[in-house]
């Protein structure tokens, strides 16, 4: 079995909405989106090995320079909540020190969450990295040169 070395860490962040409420830990990735206006914004995405494509909430379309969320290529996709319609685009993201042109789905079915606005999925993005997961430490490890 080959030795796997990981140089970086994907942190888990605590999401506790009420000081006395339950504690939830989420693996979140800070992704920089380069907008069509050439400005850069930071978006937090949930690291989701179950998502085939990186998916953002539909109401983020103004940041992508779109007039509406449904201008892209219409795609029918299966999710945990059933079959749904999303719209496919390609945008440039900076992730873990790499700049990647990758497919992005806009979906109207993603629930609101204060700590993330979408899911970091596998298509194109995961090809660039190797990942290791340690539940006991609430950390994901990654290497940019798998």
């Amino acid at each position, binding site marked *: 079995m080959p030795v796997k070395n990981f*140089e*970086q860490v994907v*942190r*888990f*962040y*605590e*999401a*506790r*909405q*009420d*000081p006395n*409420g*339950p*504690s*939830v*830990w*989420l693996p*979140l990735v*800070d992704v*920089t989106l380069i907008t069509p206006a050439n*400005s*850069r*914004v*930071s*978006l*937090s995405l949930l690291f989701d090995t179950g998502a085939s494509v990186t998916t953002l*909430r539909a*109401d*983020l379309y*103004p*940041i992508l320079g779109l007039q509406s969320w449904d201008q892209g290529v219409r795609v029918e996709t299966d999710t945990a909540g059933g079959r749904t319609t999303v719209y496919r685009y390609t945008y440039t993201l*900076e992730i*873990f*020190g*790499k*700049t990647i042109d990758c497919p992005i789905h806009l979906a109207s079915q993603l*629930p*609101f*969450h*204060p*700590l*993330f*606005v979408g899911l970091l999925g596998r298509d194109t993005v995961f090809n660039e990295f190797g990942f290791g997961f340690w539940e006991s430490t*609430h950390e994901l490890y990654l290497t*940019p040169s798998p």
Partner: protein
Amino acid sequence: MKSSTRAYNQVQSQKTILSLISASGAKSPQEFLETLDKIGIEWYVTEKGTLMIKYWQIGAEDFVPSEQAAVIRSDRPSPDQGDELDWLSKNLPNVRGRYGGQWVAVYNNEIIAAAPDLPDLIRQIGGFDRPLISFIPAEPVVWTFTYAS
């Protein structure tokens, strides 16, 4: 000697050292940075590729292209750059109480803009590089994830 005078002299000394390293002909930016590490000068590279040295004076503008800056910064982020996501995580109850139902932009560990609609927020954050954008639901989210403890 006053501390401000000491700091000034130290900066001048470091700038002299930078000049000497440049004059010695470092073959690459990486070799230049390794030399700084060897002689104990703390440094980081900004997103635009500017080399900063402690006391965080500009060491060299256009030191590396922005693509190479992203690679260097993944290993050594700016020391004064806040982790916006960490700050939002730790302050979530307060942020939800004040900004529930709005889009927010977080930068250097503070909310720099808030608006009920995203285009309005975008107009407010034009001068900031890489603010964290998120939507704060007015009502608590019902958690269904497996990582609850």
